[in-house]
């Protein structure tokens, strides 16, 4: 775009180069009257408000002399460089036409000063200034308002008229001169008039000759708009007069208008040349077009610009041609895009309302001294009429934005845009209808009828193209650089309006190329404006780039007064362009943008913030940089940045609170989640000792512990809440969250004040300080105590490291580690805590158990049969009373055995409840080394040699197979049954303790010769407080019980005693200990057994009575189900006998060395049939007599061969029922004592009488007697076997006792035989 002929026509910088570009200029400002609004004197409180109100009066409608309504627009500026004023000939909108000062004074001196400043301002812009107003605010309301006398006003009018007439001769002067002169000349009159109205306290200085308006400082100034409108009105008339003046000029005579720098160019040129004439004409036409545009005749301006352009093109006056083209474009744009002008003021309507209701009386210190328009008014008669009407009309004709029509405008604010459109179009029509009103007055200027203004109206494309050309023309002049720059901005703004962003960007791009010698501040402003426009067209990156450039310029070395805050804000505002969000979480989750640039920008931002003197911001941004750019930084950069951050935070610590800037921007907190990096975060359940359990466990749904099948439910689809924890935490109890942290920095990192972030119930977190070595994962446990019951949400943790406090929330954690957004844990009411101590009475084994450790182990050794007392001491260490306590024992023993080993009283436990805080409860438990002392089966350590030596067994005849069970077989049977028992108990054991399968093998009654290990868990379930009905705690006490062998009974037998009601139980006792043992087997009967020795002891016992025990056995049966399995009645009898023995045998042992007492029992002893006969009281009482002499047991009877012996056998029934079909038989035999018995004694013995008698019935308590005679023929040892057998099923004795009627004679076989024991032995001698 930039012409290659640039600089060809350029000159060295002239003296009056416009050097202050006005970047805020818009195209529509070409049509505006420029008014300076300035605050002078003291600082006015409500200056900004007044400024806004003035700004709102930017458009008034004036009816001109021909009755046409003119739309006059005003541009207010706060500051205007005089140099730019010099360009007023080139483009008339650059002229400052009006001045409004807002001033405050407190006393006369200040007032004088204010007046002086005002006047000096007037002088400053004297070249162009047409009119001014001074709004003066006195001290408070004490300022007396001068009375507004109508006559005074009329007087002024008269006075004015006079002075105007006196000045009328000056009208012919060029307008600039007239302006300046009028202001100078009018001093005299205005001063005189001012005095009279000045109120008594203050007087304006004599040289002050401005239309001043006085108010109290806090007055609402209701007529502000009115006065401003008046000023504009007056300005309009001046401009209009100028326009008319210009339009009437003779084209041949016009002087050459010059841009400021052109003055030297035309020195020595032929001013009279045709070319030059044309140049003058073109320039004047262009000037007229400017004025026409300003005067509100837009369509006329269009055609004027066009013709000016044509004239100038022909003379190659590039600069002015460019201006004409620009004017053409601008005018077209104003027509095409009318809302360019309207949008700004209309938006502010709402705020206007507050000032309107205060309808105070309009105050007007009317000082119509030197208003230039009055002069013109007097001179131009057609205008005079309109002028007189204008003060009245003007307010009424204000646009909807002015005060008069506030009500309607605010009401219609929604339809404002529509209104504007219609307004614009209506003005258009207006113009068209009144097109010809000027033509008769302006014959000298080439004019086109306005009806064809559309011919010159440029389309959007044409505007852009023409603007492009205009800038090219401008670019040929170095001194017009600022004009070009402004033109580019204006063109860009139009392009924005056209929605053509590429075109806008090309115009903006052009700005870069314009080489201007600008102050640093203006360069910054240029970039700022560029950025703003780029932003408008959506080129955010460009905008950001420009903003960053502007920011760096702010603080560049060339800049004499670096402005760090501005720099900072510019940088901050370039964030969107760099795709940085201020919210670090967003930035972390959406990694967008160019990291290298973002890092650079953030670095610069940190520096700016630091230099700005806002260390908190610097820390914040540094944290942000480290947090968001972490993945893009190298390790070395991590380290450097961390160190920098540490240095920054030393000045101001970073905290997790949003920072609010003065501008109202909020910098959200940045949290360091990378330093340290969290690899693992999980709340832990309470340790087992403190875990709450449900008091009543839920019933199991089925036999399966786990099933993958969910029948007919949708549950499998609803995923479980990830963060919901299955366990419970307890109020007032320390809970724990386990984390794994890594320090990614290469130096040691101290993280202090680590806490948990929670919501939900109140939670007291315990701060933790850790030092993390570089690059090694460290496990950290954070603790805290929930203080309420309910749901606790764990949201994350907070850290304090590198001087920055961070709240690291799980949901914001960087991606690689997936955490749920929160962990949710239910907190239940507080439960008591206990500590447990166990004390053993005997060995004094004190075991202090730590409640934290679930299984504190107590080891106890017991000899079989030994018993000891163990006390469990429970101390309530919490503040909650224990109201529920239950003791359970789990072991690898079956329940029965366990019940025997551990004995305690539940009542005693319950009686101690409740246990108050810090109270102690004692639970005594008796431990007993339960064992089977009978040594059975194949594990015999001692040889079985003793067995066969029992006389009873040796000597007993074997009449049938059933009765003669050898000991060995009885042992086998016993071992069989015990084996059965093992199996069965193991089964029941498993079913009852299915969860503890770790035990290797169920222990049952085992051979006592080996030591046994019993692992026991004593489980204490306790609860209290509010949650006692639902939950309890469980403490487990591990107790390892070692049962040592003490004594064992390897063999046993029974012998009849001397008295028939008694018997001897003969036991082989083995001392399995290594010590000498004092064994007491009967009251006052002791025996000492050496260690590992055995000895045989006879235990005298009463024989087993049958009736009474039968009932007992019944009880025992129901109690001990194991005897059922052995089911037959033989066994039930046997059990009865065994039970009898067990009950009556009281074996005690005492280890002499270690002074340990214990007991032993013969429980489970098995008896053969023959043994049972001895043990049991016989149902038949024998009375055997030889030769009328009763035979005593063990007594030997002597006789000689051939001697006749009378053998009398009396049998009496001791049963409580009659016996039937008894067969009493007497048999003689010889026992060879080598196991052979000789029953064939045919030639040795002769008997007379029956040796077999059948008794059909033997009723109860009856006695039967049988007698026979026997003669021994040869000497020798004879024995008589006397027995009584029955075919009746006497074995069912017990059941028969129960159901007598069902007595039935069964088969002929002999069902039971009673013998007279011992057999009668007779030695026959010769």
């Amino acid at each position, binding site marked *: 775009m930039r012409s290659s002929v640039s600089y060809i026509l350029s000159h060295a910088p002239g003296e009056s180069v416009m050097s202050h570009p006005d970047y805020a200029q818009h195209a529509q400002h070409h049509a505006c009257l420029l008014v300076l609004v300035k605050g002078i004197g003291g600082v006015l409180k409500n200056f900004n408000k007044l400024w806004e109100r003035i700004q709102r009066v930017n458009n008034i409608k004036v009816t001109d002399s021909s009755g046409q309504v003119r739309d006059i627009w005003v541009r207010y500026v706060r500051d205007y460089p005089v140099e730019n004023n010099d360009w007023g000939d080139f483009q008339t909108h650059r002229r400052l036409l009006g001045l409004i000062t807002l001033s405050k004074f407190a006393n006369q001196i200040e007032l004088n000063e204010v007046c002086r400043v005002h006047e000096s301002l007037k002088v400053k812009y004297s070249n162009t200034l047409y009119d001014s107003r001074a709004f003066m605010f006195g001290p408070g309301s004490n300022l007396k308002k001068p009375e507004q006398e109508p006559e005074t006003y009329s007087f002024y009018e008269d006075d004015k008229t006079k002075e105007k007439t006196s000045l009328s001769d000056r009208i012919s002067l060029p307008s600039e001169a007239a302006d300046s002169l009028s202001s100078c000349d009018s001093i005299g009159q205005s001063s005189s008039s001012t005095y009279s109205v000045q109120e008594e306290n203050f007087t304006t200085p004599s040289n002050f000759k401005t239309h001043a308006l006085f108010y109290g400082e806090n007055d609402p100034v209701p007529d502000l708009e009115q006065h401003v409108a008046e000023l504009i009105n007056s300005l309009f008339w001046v401009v209009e007069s100028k326009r008319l003046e210009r339009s009437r000029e003779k084209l041949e005579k016009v002087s050459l208008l010059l841009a400021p720098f052109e003055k030297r160019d035309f020195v020595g040129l032929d001013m009279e040349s045709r070319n030059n004439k044309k140049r003058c004409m073109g320039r004047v036409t262009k000037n007229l077009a400017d004025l026409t545009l300003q005067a509100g005749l837009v369509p006329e301006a269009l055609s004027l610009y066009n013709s000016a352009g044509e004239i100038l093109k022909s003379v190659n006056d590039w600069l002015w041609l460019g201006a004409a083209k620009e004017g053409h474009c601008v005018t077209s744009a104003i027509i095409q895009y009318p809302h360019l002008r309207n949008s700004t003021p209309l938006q502010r309507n709402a705020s206007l309302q507050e000032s309107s209701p205060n309808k105070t009386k309009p105050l007007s210190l009317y000082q119509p001294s030197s208003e230039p328009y009055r002069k013109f008014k007097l001179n131009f008669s057609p205008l005079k009429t309109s002028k007189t009407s204008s003060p009245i009309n003007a307010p009424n004709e204000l646009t909807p934005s002015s005060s008069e029509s506030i009500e309607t405008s605010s009401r219609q604010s929604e339809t404002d845009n529509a209104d504007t459109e219609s307004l614009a179009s209506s003005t258009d029509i207006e113009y068209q209808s009144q097109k010809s009103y000027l033509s008769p007055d302006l014959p000298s200027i080439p004019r086109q009828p306005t009806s064809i203004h559309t011919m010159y109206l440029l389309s959007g494309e044409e505007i852009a193209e023409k603007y492009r050309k205009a800038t090219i023309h401008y670019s040929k002049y170095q001194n017009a650089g600022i004009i070009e720059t402004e033109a580019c901005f204006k063109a860009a703004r139009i392009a924005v309006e056209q929605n053509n962003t590429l075109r806008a960007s090309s115009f903006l791009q052009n700005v870069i190329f314009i080489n201007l010698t600008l102050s640093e501040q203006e360069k910054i402003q240029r970039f700022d404006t560029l950025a703003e426009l780029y932003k408008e067209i959506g080129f955010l990156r460009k905008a950001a780039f420009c903003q960053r450039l502007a920011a760096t310029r702010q603080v560049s070395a060339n800049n004499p007064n670096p402005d760090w805050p501005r720099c900072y804000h510019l940088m901050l505002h370039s964030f969107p362009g760099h795709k940085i969000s201020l919210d670090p979480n967003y930035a972390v989750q959406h990694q967008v*943008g160019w990291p290298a640039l973002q890092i650079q920008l953030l670095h610069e931002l940190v520096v700016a913030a630091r230099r700005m003197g806002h260390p908190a911001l610097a820390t914040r941004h540094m944290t942000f940089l480290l947090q968001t750019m972490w993945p893009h930084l190298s390790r070395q950069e991590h380290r450097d940045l961390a160190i920098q951050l540490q240095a920054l935070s030393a000045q101001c610590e970073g905290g997790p609170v949003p920072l609010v800037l003065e501008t109202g921007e909020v910098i959200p907190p940045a949290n360091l989640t990378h330093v340290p990096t969290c690899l693992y975060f999980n709340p832990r359940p309470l340790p087992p000792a403190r875990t709450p359990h449900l008091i009543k466990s839920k019933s199991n749904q089925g036999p399966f512990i786990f099933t993958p099948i969910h029948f007919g439910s949708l549950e499998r689809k609803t995923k479980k809440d990830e963060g919901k924890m299955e366990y419970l935490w307890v109020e007032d109890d320390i809970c724990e969250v386990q984390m794994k942290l890594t320090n990614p920095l290469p130096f040691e990192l101290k993280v202090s004040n680590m806490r948990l972030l929670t919501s939900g119930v109140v939670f007291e977190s315990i701060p933790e300080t850790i030092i993390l070595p570089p690059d090694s994962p460290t496990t950290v446990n954070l603790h805290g105590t929930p203080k309420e019951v309910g749901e606790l949400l764990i949201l994350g943790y907070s850290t304090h490291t590198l001087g920055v406090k961070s709240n690291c929330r799980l949901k914001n954690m960087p991606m690689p580690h997936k955490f749920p957004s929160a962990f949710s844990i239910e907190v239940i009411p507080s439960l008591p805590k206990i500590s447990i101590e166990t004390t053993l009475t005997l060995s004094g084994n004190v075991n202090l158990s730590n409640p934290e450790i679930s299984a504190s182990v107590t080891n106890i050794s017991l000899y079989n049969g030994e018993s000891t007392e163990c006390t469990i001491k429970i101390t309530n260490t919490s503040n909650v009373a224990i109201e529920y306590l239950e003791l359970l024992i789990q072991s690898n023993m079956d329940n029965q055995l366990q019940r025997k080993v551990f004995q305690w009283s539940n009542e005693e436990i319950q009686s101690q409840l409740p246990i108050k805080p810090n109270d102690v409860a004692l639970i005594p438990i008796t431990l007993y080394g339960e064992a089977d002392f009978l040594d059975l089966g194949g594990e015999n350590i001692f040889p079985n040699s003793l067995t066969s030596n029992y006389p009873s067994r040796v000597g007993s005849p074997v009449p049938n197979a059933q009765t003669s069970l050898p000991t060995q077989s009885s042992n086998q049977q016993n071992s069989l049954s015990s084996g059965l028992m093992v199996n069965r108990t193991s089964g029941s054991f498993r079913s009852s303790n299915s969860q503890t399968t770790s035990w290797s093998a169920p222990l049952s009654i085992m051979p006592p010769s080996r030591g046994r290990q019993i692992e026991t868990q004593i489980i204490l379930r306790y609860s209290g407080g509010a949650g006692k009905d639902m939950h309890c705690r469980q403490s487990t006490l591990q107790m390892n019980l070692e049962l040592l062998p003490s004594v064992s009974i390897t063999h046993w037998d029974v012998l009849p005693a001397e008295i028939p009601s008694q018997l001897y139980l003969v036991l082989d006792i083995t001392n399995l200990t290594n010590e000498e043992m004092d064994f007491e087997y009967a009251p006052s009967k002791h025996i000492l057994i050496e260690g590992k020795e055995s000895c045989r002891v006879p235990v005298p016992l009463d024989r087993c009575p049958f009736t009474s025990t039968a009932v007992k056995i019944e009880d025992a049966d129901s109690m001990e189900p194991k005897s059922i399995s052995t089911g037959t009645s033989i066994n039930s009898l046997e059990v009865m006998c065994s039970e009898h023995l067990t009950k009556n045998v009281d074996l005690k042992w005492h280890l002499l060395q270690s002074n340990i007492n214990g007991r032993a029992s013969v429980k489970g002893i098995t008896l053969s049939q023959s043994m049972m006969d001895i043990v049991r009281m016989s149902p038949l009482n024998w009375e055997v007599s030889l030769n009328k002499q009763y035979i005593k047991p063990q007594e030997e009877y002597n006789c000689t061969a051939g001697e006749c012996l009378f053998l009398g056998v009396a049998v009496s029934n001791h049963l409580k029922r009659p016996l039937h079909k008894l067969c009493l038989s007497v048999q003689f035999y010889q026992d060879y004592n080598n196991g052979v018995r000789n029953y064939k004694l045919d030639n040795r013995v002769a008997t007379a009488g029956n040796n077999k008698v059948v008794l059909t019935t033997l009723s109860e308590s009856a006695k039967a007697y049988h007698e026979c005679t026997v003669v021994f023929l040869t000497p020798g040892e004879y024995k008589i076997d006397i027995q009584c057998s029955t075919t009746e099923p006497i074995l069912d004795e017990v059941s028969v006792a129960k159901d007598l009627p069902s007595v039935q004679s069964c088969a002929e076989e002999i069902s039971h035989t009673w013998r007279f024991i011992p057999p009668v032995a007779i030695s026959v001698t010769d």
Partner: protein
Amino acid sequence: MAVCVAVIGKDNSPLYIGGTGNDTSTDNELSRQWLVHTALDALEERLASTNNTNLNSSANASRTELRDLYLGLLYSTDTHKIYGYVTNTRIKLVLVTSSTSPSGSNIRDAEVRTALRRLHALYADAICNPFHLPGDQITSTKFDKQVKSLIMNNV
């Protein structure tokens, strides 16, 4: 003389930025990035506008008509000119020439076009690597070398 070549992904993330320069200091690298980054605005706008016109014209014109991949000069600064090229998969190739050096100031449009076409081909080759994940930064040394030679040779 080309100063820098950049490959930018469809989400406007930088995939590759390579360039030659007298010095390879980070400042140089950064300034290149600034240049290319700010070019993205114009590039996107250009794309959007061509798309719109395409859409408008697609009513009558056949869809087979392909958009020209070469976008031409995106913008220029005092020292650099930035050219753009967009593949059909919205991968943006940006070439920066220096307007200060004699060889770069009068570079022809056609030269830039061919250079960018070749860069496209090189990019396609680099992407063909089965171990390359589309959207990742291009780290291939071969690509780098080829691009460097392209910069040196061609322009």
